[in-house]
């Protein structure tokens, strides 16, 4: 019951109202119960009438028990009606009965309080006897009506009647009473608004809120005057409906986000740093879906549908020599044979300018899609980075170290007791460490040792990187030697050596780095960043070694191509020489396309290499997951019954989820996609598949075989770090792709650009033949260096200007922060002085306020809103003035 600051009349009313309300609600419940019945019958549930009626009786009993919760219930039920009772009513009833048990206790407490109230305010009630009488009359009418409800047919009409009653009743009140009612309504509204700041226990707050909302719901609609009343009620109703709809819509939206529930569950078990990986994975999936849509819709499908069919020309046919083995699984697994001569690879596409009845410009589309995917990726990554940068920032970790820890170190998303224990322990240790750090920062004796160890660690890592780089280089050289010998002479291991070695090094070196990084004794967040940087260097080195090897191979293929070209002319000449003299009138000899000699087509080779790399990478990831995590977990779990030490707590134990390694694996995988997508249009599709599978597989693996990290920490700052790495990788992976596109001439007999001297000539061609003359003229003017250079200069200037302004803003922010600190110091001094003078209540107030500011500063730091900080600062100054 509300006791605070509400007028006597209202409290008097309240009892009355609530009793009325109970009646009203009671009736309604019964109606609902019957409606449920009918629903069940309609749905044809094979149930006996008697049994269900007994069930209804039970339900009613339960509902009677949970009157304390009515407001919420009723809303819920209304909501339910609105949705057309899609859900199973029974379930809800069960749920209710469960809750009713809980509510009973609180309800009893309420009842007791009610009684007290009544006794205390009985005298006051007598004063407004008139009013009471009116109410009682209304009550009486109501009860009569309720008694009438006996047959099931009437319930709809009854509801209508009830509504009428509700609307009618206020008219029976005098204007005075109406005025008072209005006041009470206003009072309640105010109460609801200020409820959050009241120093009450949560239970009381909740009950008060519920009661006030019920009250408002009941009387707000009745308050308009005369004609406007109906309109007003209608408006109120509509706003409520609208709000409800918005809330539902929000819920719907969250339900539509893919894998949201999975990620939330993981977040609750493992903290936000693990969840951030899965969010990143989902984001990546979205981007790859779009890339896939572009390549699939604009390149692969048109070529497959409208281009020339398989076998119509040499580039679309498996050569005669390979025909026998073209369908073997081993060949297909290596993406040779029929897979090589299909839309999956560059070489299959024809250089016909326009295909099909749509006159689809295939080469142009191929080129633009290649450029567009890269451009789109750049755009998305940079936009996300900018958005993240806006969100983060603001807070400084240095100045209020302990209060930061005090107020902000809990991860509120944790919902698992074990993780909560870990978090608790990690907070405690972080406090201990922070205290030790404070002490040590005053002593700083062992700094040389730490520095030495850090340098040593970096040296070791360098050695490791150099070793792995050399190993890959060695392997690549060897593979070239094998290629010269002919691949068939060597075993599977030797043929797949490069991929295997790259995957293995990518898997094991991070573990070594992890071990080495324990030497350095960094904070885990910083350690994570170092770790990421090192793995990044490793992967990058591996990737670039691979690319350099590919470049060598491209050069080899191009030499081969020259020879083939020469041989082709000889072959053609011999062909015609041989045929022409025999029969000059016969049509020219048709040669089956499979017999035509052809060039090596380096583009397809590059695409194949990338596809193989992706496949082997994916395989390694999954196998590691299955062996390293799942098998280990199974062994640990079941061998623990018969082992001489504790496997779970001791030596092998369960694995932790390796955030940094997984993120980097994802990023580099994406880099390979960006690199190879131009030469193998199937790569985005493969990647979508891979990401989809790994989403489910990793979600399962993390929940089933990993344990929460011992040092759980928040990953709020690391998202942009991932993005920055992704950007770097994007740049580094587009570099070789663009280099090959721009500098190396395309093969003469395969791919959409065959016959051109450079791939981008397709744009020139389109401009000349498909656009009016003036357009190409304008374009040539616009691409004139005299125009481009000033434009670039302007852009650079603009960037410089924006950067300098943002810097000045930052400085201003720092200034403000300093002032804030000064003010705080002055504030605490003043408070101390006052408390020294005499412990006046004002001093206490000051202290309380200063504490409030503390928390406010903390919260504004969390949200990182400059504006809010300024406001807080202003408010602080004002209060300071008042106090001093």
């Amino acid at each position, binding site marked *: 019951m509300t006791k605070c600051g509400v007028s006597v009349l209202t409290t008097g009313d309240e009892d009355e109202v609530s009793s009325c309300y109970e009646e009203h609600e009671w009736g309604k419940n019964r109606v609902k119960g019957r409606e449920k019945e009918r629903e069940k019958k309609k749905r044809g549930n094979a149930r006996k009438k008697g049994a269900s009626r007994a069930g209804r009786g039970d339900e009613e009993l339960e509902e009677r028990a949970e009157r304390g919760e009515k407001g919420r219930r009723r809303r819920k039920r209304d909501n339910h009606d609105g949705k057309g009772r899609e859900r199973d009513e029974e379930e809800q009833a069960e749920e209710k009965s469960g809750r009713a048990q809980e509510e009973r206790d609180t309800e009893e407490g309420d009842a007791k309080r009610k009684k007290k109230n009544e006794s205390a305010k009985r005298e006051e009630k007598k004063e407004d006897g008139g009013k009471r009488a009116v109410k009682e009359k209304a009550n009486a009418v109501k009860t009569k009506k309720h008694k009438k409800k006996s047959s099931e047919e009437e319930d709809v009409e009854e509801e209508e009647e009830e509504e009428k009653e509700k609307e009618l009743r206020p008219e029976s009140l005098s204007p005075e009473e109406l005025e008072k009612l209005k006041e009470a309504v206003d009072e309640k509204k105010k109460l609801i608004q200020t409820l959050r700041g009241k120093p009450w226990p949560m239970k009381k707050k909740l009950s008060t809120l519920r009661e006030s909302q019920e009250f408002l719901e009941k009387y707000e609609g009745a308050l308009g005057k005369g004609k406007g009343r109906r309109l007003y009620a209608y408006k109120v109703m509509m706003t409520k409906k609208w709000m409800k709809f918005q809330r539902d819509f929000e819920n719907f939206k969250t339900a539509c986000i893919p894998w949201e529930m999975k990620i939330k569950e993981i977040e609750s078990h493992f903290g936000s740093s693990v969840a951030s990986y899965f969010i990143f994975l989902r984001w990546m999936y979205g981007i790859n879906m779009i890339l896939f849509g572009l390549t699939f819709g604009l390149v692969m499908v048109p070529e497959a549908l409208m281009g020339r069919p398989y076998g119509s020309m040499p580039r679309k046919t498996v050569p005669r020599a390979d025909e026998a083995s073209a369908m073997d699984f081993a060949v297909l697994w290596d993406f040779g044979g029929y897979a090589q001569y299909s839309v999956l690879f560059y070489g299959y596409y024809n250089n016909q300018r326009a295909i099909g009845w749509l006159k689809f410009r295939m080469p142009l589309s191929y080129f633009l899609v290649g450029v567009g995917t890269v451009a789109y990726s750049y755009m998305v990554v940079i936009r996300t980075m900018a958005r993240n940068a806006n969100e983060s920032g603001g807070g400084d970790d240095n100045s209020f170290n302990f209060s930061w820890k005090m107020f902000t170190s809990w991860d509120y998303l944790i919902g698992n007791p074990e993780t909560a224990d870990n978090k608790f322990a990690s907070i405690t240790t972080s406090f201990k460490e922070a205290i030790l750090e404070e002490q040590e920062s005053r002593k700083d004796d062992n700094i040389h040792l730490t520095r030495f160890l850090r340098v040593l660690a970096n040296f070791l890592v360098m050695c490791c990187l150099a070793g792995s780089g050399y*190993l890959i280089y060695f392997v690549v050289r060897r593979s070239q030697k094998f290629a010269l010998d002919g691949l068939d002479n060597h075993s599977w291991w030797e043929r797949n050596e490069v991929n295997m070695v790259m995957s293995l*090094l990518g898997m094991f070196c991070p573990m*070594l780095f992890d071990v080495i990084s324990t030497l350095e004794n960094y904070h885990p967040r910083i350690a994570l960043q170092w770790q990421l940087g090192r793995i990044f260097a490793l992967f990058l080195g591996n990737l670039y070694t691979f690319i350099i090897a590919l470049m060598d191979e491209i050069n080899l293929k191009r030499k081969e191509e020259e020879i083939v070209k020469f041989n082709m002319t000889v072959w053609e000449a011999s062909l015609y020489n041989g045929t022409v003299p025999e029969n000059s009138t016969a049509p020219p000899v048709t040669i089956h396309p499979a017999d035509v000699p052809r060039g090596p087509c380096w583009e397809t080779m590059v695409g194949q290499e990338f596809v193989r790399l992706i496949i082997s990478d994916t395989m390694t990831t999954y196998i590691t997951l299955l062996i390293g995590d799942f098998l280990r977990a199974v062994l640990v779990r079941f061998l623990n019954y018969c082992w001489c030490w504790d496997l779970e707590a001791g*030596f092998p134990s369960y694995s932790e989820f390796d955030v940094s390694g997984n993120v980097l694996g994802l990023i580099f995988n994406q880099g390979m996609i960006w690199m190879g997508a131009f030469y193998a249009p199937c790569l985005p599709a493969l990647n979508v598949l891979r990401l989809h599978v790994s989403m489910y597989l990793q979600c399962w693996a993390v929940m089933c075989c990993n344990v929460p990290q011992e040092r759980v920490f928040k990953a709020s700052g690391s998202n942009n770090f991932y993005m920055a790495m992704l950007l770097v990788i994007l740049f580094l992976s587009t570099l070789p792709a663009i280099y090959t596109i721009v500098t190396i001439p395309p093969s003469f007999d395969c791919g959409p650009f065959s016959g051109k001297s450079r791939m981008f000539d397709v744009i020139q061609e389109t401009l000349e033949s498909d656009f009016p003359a003036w357009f190409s003229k304008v374009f040539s003017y616009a691409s004139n260096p005299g125009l481009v250079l000033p434009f670039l200069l302007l852009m650079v200037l603009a960037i410089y200007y924006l950067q300098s302004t943002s810097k000045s803003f930052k400085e201003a922010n720092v200034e403000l922060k300093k002032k804030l600190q000064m003010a705080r110091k002055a504030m605490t001094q003043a408070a101390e002085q006052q408390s020294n003078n005499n412990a006046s209540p004002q001093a206490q107030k000051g202290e309380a306020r200063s504490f409030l500011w503390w928390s406010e500063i903390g919260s504004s730091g969390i949200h990182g809103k400059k504006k809010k900080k300024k406001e807080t600062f202003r408010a602080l100054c004002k209060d300071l003035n008042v106090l001093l």
Partner: protein
Amino acid sequence: MVSPAIALAFLPLVVTLIIRYRYYFVLFYRAFLVRVWQDCATGLSREERAFQYVLTNATPGDPDSILEAFDQWCSKVEFISNIGPKKGKILDRLLMEQSPMTVLELGAHCGYSAVRMARCLPLGARLYSVEMDQRNATIAEKVIRLAGFDDDTVRGPSLKMHCTVDFVFMDHWKKCYLPDLQLLEGSGLLGKGSMILADNVLFPGAPNFLRYVRKSGLYEWRIHQATLEYIRGIRDGMAELVYQGIK
């Protein structure tokens, strides 16, 4: 035939494993290899060698000196899983706080922990020590005599007591922690407020024991984090249980 390059790619894994689990390798070397070697070379058991060392290096009648000699031998020469000086301090503190009159020790081994506990007990207290192995028991007896305490060692399962035990120290087979605890509960030897201290609950570890303690609700429990005796870098813990009685 696997190519050498692929084999070389496994090198980081091997190095990682060696570095990460180096303490376990050291432990394996000291506790197993050295022991087997010495057993073959001298023909004496490990405990007898330790006793010889103590006899030559410690002052008879001075428990501290005997403990120190043991520590010296265990950390420098060979390895015996005594409670060790660091965890021993926790034990000492608990005994000082509790000052129990009746103490039961399960697993005397070579008497190190018995001497350690006897040192901290109040006047008139009794310490019952149980050892399964006959040879170890004789050595433990000798060590206790050497330290100058009255010989109270009771052998075998003939343990019968009329009063309750105030303090139980468990350091025998880790698999037996749980059945013995249940036995103690069943026999009614535990009174309200009796303390049970179990060593090595994390390494080698007694998971079933801990699980039972957590679930049973009969005990107030906490785990003292420490490292394994005489070896750095292996985490271990002692479980301290206070019997609350059946509610």
